[in-house]
């Protein structure tokens, strides 16, 4: 990040573009809110075996993989940001 970027506020049209790109990827992937909810609860269930998760802070979304990171092709990708409160080191594995 450049120092100039720090002072420059993102224009509202850029925000609009970013938001649209995100929402259209999930629209086009026809990933319904119900399906997202199921994916979300399954991920939580699996991870809860190993760690205590901050359920309020979870952010799971389908976004677009940047073309440059994917050999020139853009493709949908599942992004998940899951805050961990505590690792359950003593849990029986």
């Amino acid at each position, binding site marked *: 990040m450049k120092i100039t970027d720090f002072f420059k506020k993102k224009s509202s*049209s850029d925000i609009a573009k970013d*938001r*649209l790109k995100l*929402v*259209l990827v999930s629209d*086009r992937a026809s990933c319904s809110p119900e399906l997202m909810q199921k994916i979300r609860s399954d991920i939580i269930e699996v991870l809860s075996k190993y760690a205590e998760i901050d359920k309020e802070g979870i952010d799971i979304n389908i976004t677009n993989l940047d073309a440059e990171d994917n050999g020139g092709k853009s493709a949908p990708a599942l992004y998940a940001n899951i805050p961990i409160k505590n690792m359950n080191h003593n849990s029986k594995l």
Partner: protein
Amino acid sequence: MGEVIVITSGKGGVGKTTSSANIGTGLAKLNKKVVLIDTDIGLRNLDVVLGLENRIVYNLVDVIEGNCKIKQALIRDKRYETLFLLPAAQTKDKTSVTPEQMKKLTDELKQEYDYIILDCPAGIEQGFKNAIAGADRALVVTTPEVSAVRDADRIIGLLEANEIKQTHLIVNRLRPDMIKRGDMMSSDDVIDILAIELIGQVPDDENIVVATNNGEPLVGDNSLAGQAYMNICRRITGEQVPFLDLEAKKGLFSWFKKK
């Protein structure tokens, strides 16, 4: 053989009816034989935008149900001899017409007219399905707002699924001052997101309101919107017309002087 063009958007209030009226009138100005069909049954509006509301006798549902001949229901425009309107019914609902009936009607009109322009209702239900049934190509109208662009994307997907071969985009209500400030997406931004070909960019123009008040579409006059719509019409007929530079204030001004 004529061409059937549906004008659609998904979202309401983005300028479908205004665009239909101006494109229909513009094509008639270019000496084409045109029928405008208002397919928004129950919420008809194209008649008032064209200033023909006092001449309606029969409507689309009357034609479909066989209460009258097509010719009896077509209203000739006040100013252009080759422009006709087939108004929507106001007292029926969208289920009184089926896609098959619409296709039969447009196929018949195609034999005699150069362009059949269908003003599609908002939404993706029955009215939309009726309007696209017989269409050869589609013009999707959007404004540079997230809600309208999102709905346009959905509509483009549905048009593809229904095998409409040619789909073009009209970006309406652009404000060059806001685009310059970074507070509005430009038509380039919108095409970039929707990945379809642009056929027109129409500036936000007070003259549109005045024209609608008077019931006389402004296509082809000296206003920016009037020029933009005329350019769209010429592109529909296959002519290559460069896009107006709406963003450069200076360019816009000198362009005005040229006229």
